[in-house]
């Protein structure tokens, strides 16, 4: 038995400690918003936060997890959408949408650390996340508008 904290809830899990966090979330906890795309840290579809850091959940085992996990389902801490989600909806970023949980989680963690990113910062931070549908132009726009919103709220 092992206890892990996901989206503010403590889960008691009887799972092999070598299991990647991705599959713990999807198959054991039932949180399927986090996606499997490549399994080898290449696509970012499985991005979650561990203590507010963006992590590829396919490449970290349950035993290696040290801290509180946030998934797309728990990104918004209130009844409202998170600022990044709001921006994603407003800019209608998603096509198939499969990569977008990972994109949003990556963007949220990035903006937390760099609230006023330059275009170059955005390019660098977001290039580990693949989007086969090619929504990159809208991802850029949405990050900029989320940044404005976050800064407005913080000011």
């Amino acid at each position, binding site marked *: 038995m092992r206890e892990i904290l996901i989206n503010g809830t403590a889960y008691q899990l009887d799972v092999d400690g070598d*299991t990647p966090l991705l599959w713990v979330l999807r198959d054991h906890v039932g949180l399927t918003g986090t996606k499997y795309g490549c399994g080898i840290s290449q696509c970012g579809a499985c991005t979650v936060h561990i203590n507010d850091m963006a992590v590829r959940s396919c490449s970290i085992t349950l035993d290696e997890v040290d801290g509180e996990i946030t998934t797309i389902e728990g990104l918004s801490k209130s009844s409202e959408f998170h600022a990044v989600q709001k921006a994603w909806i407003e800019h209608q970023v998603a096509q198939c949408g499969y990569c977008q949980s990972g994109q949003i989680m990556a963007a949220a963690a990035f903006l937390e650390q760099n609230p006023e990113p330059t275009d170059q910062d955005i390019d660098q931070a977001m290039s580990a996340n693949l989007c086969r549908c090619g929504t990159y132009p809208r991802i850029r726009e949405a990050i900029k508008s989320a940044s404005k919103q976050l800064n407005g709220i913080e000011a």
Partner: protein
Amino acid sequence: MKKVIKIARRSFLIGSASIVGGVAFGVYAYHKPGHNVLKDSLNEGEAALTPYVKITPDGIILTTPHCDKGQGAYSVQAALIAEELDVTLEDIQVDPGVPAPVYYNTAISQETVPFASTDNSLIANSVRTTMDAAMKFTGMQITGGSTTVADSYTKLRVAGAVARETLKQAASLQSNIAVEKLRTEKGHVILPNGDQISYLDLARTAANIDPVEEVILKAEDQWRLIGKPMQRIDIEDKSTGKIRYGIDLKLDNMLIATVKQSPTKNGGIKSIELNKADQMPGVEKVVRINNAIAVIAQTTWQAFNAIDEIEIEGNKPDYPLHSDEHWQILENSFQEEKLAFIARDEGDANGENLLNSNKIEREYRAPYVAHAPLEPLNATIKVSEKRVDVWTGTQTPQFLKSQIAKITQMDEDNIHIHAMMMGGSFGHRLETLVMTQAAEIAMAMPGTPIKLIYKREEDFAQDFTRQIAMAKATGHIKGKEIIGLDLGIAMPSVRQSQTSRLGLPDVGKDMQMVAGAWDQPYTIENYKVAAYKAGPLPPVSSWRSVGASSNAFFHDSFLDELIHAADLDPMEERIRLMWHENSRKTLEAVAQMSDWSSPLAKDKARGVAFCLSFGVPCAQVIEISNTPNGIKIDKVFVAAEVGKIIDPINFDNLVKGGVVWGLGHAMNCEITYSDGMVDQTNYHVHEGMRLYQCPEIFVKGLENGEKVKGIGEPPVPPAAPALANAIFAATGKRIREMPFNKHINFI
């Protein structure tokens, strides 16, 4: 302008253009009305007014038969029905519906007839109409070929209008007020005194009257939805992780399976070494199925771990083992016996005029590339005693149904397909192998739902890729005039590969072999495009924009070379040579958007390309910088002619996505073979474009054409040649082979 659309009651007249797509209640089968499948499962008090509109006491449900691979098809289809039905998108539910012949696709056949889409002659139209009839006959419910909008545009609006008028009839009966005095708004029939009757309260009455036979479609200036920016109905769910794809399905007692197939594809299995995979934790069963071994386990991770232990050796396939031999096959295909057909033959290739001109010969190559949508292939199947349930994302639900029926030896009526949201497809989910495998596996454990998930590595190893292709081009220049363009294209026939997998006959010309090249609307005195069939080669399939994805690169790159050789301006000369007005306008639009004739900084350059594909003329200008670290793509300008834009936001998103798709693969993707097996295993060696490489993309949709066309594929073909042409302009280096990173660095 109002159009009265008369609804044909029973017969379908071949040759009558007005009938195409304009049939109410969806469609009529030959001599008898198409069966309204929604009527099969109605509860008391519910009405299925057409196969697309169902009204229940609890709500309005619209059926959207074209699947949603991420292209926003559900929203677009719902909007077309809702426009005429007078309901808001917030008030309706969308259901992909059950596969049924009534939802056949009339538009897809148009890409398979040997007439250029610019050819509106009587004979071309009558052949297209005949093909429509044939489609309906076989009940092809297919999403592909950018046909969703084309197929739905009139059909779904008529369906909405018929439902609306029938509801008015019902209201008239209930209220005793003449129909002419009634109008509709936001899901209600409005009486002259302002009282409203909700559609939901009319369902019972409407169900008992004959649907109206004649409807008037709204004039464009009355539209509330079409042509205006829409909020996609799934956008919130796709931004919160709530949306469920096939891979997310969870059912009681469900087990997870994964497969390893013969690594030599159709070569078959020589030997299998289990290495105790069957004794690994969580493994329930190891099953041998056709050309593969499957592991069934409690969880995905356990299934993946176990399959990794299993070693499979493949037999020698029927194609050569190594990629260089594949190129050799293509190289050797340019001869009389391999000639499939000549698609265009104008002028005299051996004419006197050509003899006294400057001759230019070139060769171009396009490699295999993978589909690799981000959601790996998956399908969930439960085989029970009396029925089979299939949960999956598919572009061909009707075919799938018959295939599953065959494998499980059940009646087609007992096969139930549940359409799941797809995490991309790009043609990948036209194929049904993962579903038939899931059926075989599920048969080994009757009563237990089995979810088959491919590992990403297996998805790459077994993809039916884009065709490999080669072109040999000969051009002639006299003075400053291009007087000859002769293009021979060699490739395996995608259609033949597909039909052979389905056990269907392959008849007629596979026009995709020359798509994007033979029908380009330029006037050149001696103009020839020929298709050569190459093989044996590995299996291939439709990849976003199919034949045009390779052929536009060949055709437009070569045209660009000829224009440069004649020392002419690439934009001006393309415009001058183009006879088709709506195509020319796309070039004029990108010339203006990109400020084509304005000077650029020394390290920057522009390239232009054009391709007419899927009936959509699309022109692109790409602006790049030649930096010490490699080529940087700065800007892309796109103009496309689609007749009518249903949702400008979705249009913009699809065009940009198509450009990213076209450029990313042209830059750095190829699938190669060694020892009969695919070399690439995952995205690190087949990357596509990443965000930092993404240019600014400017999009303009033109609406001059008469016919409404889809935009999923047409932005792809011109992207690669526009980039190659820009690279030439910037560096003087002409790249004639994809991926370009074999020859030049990108930032």
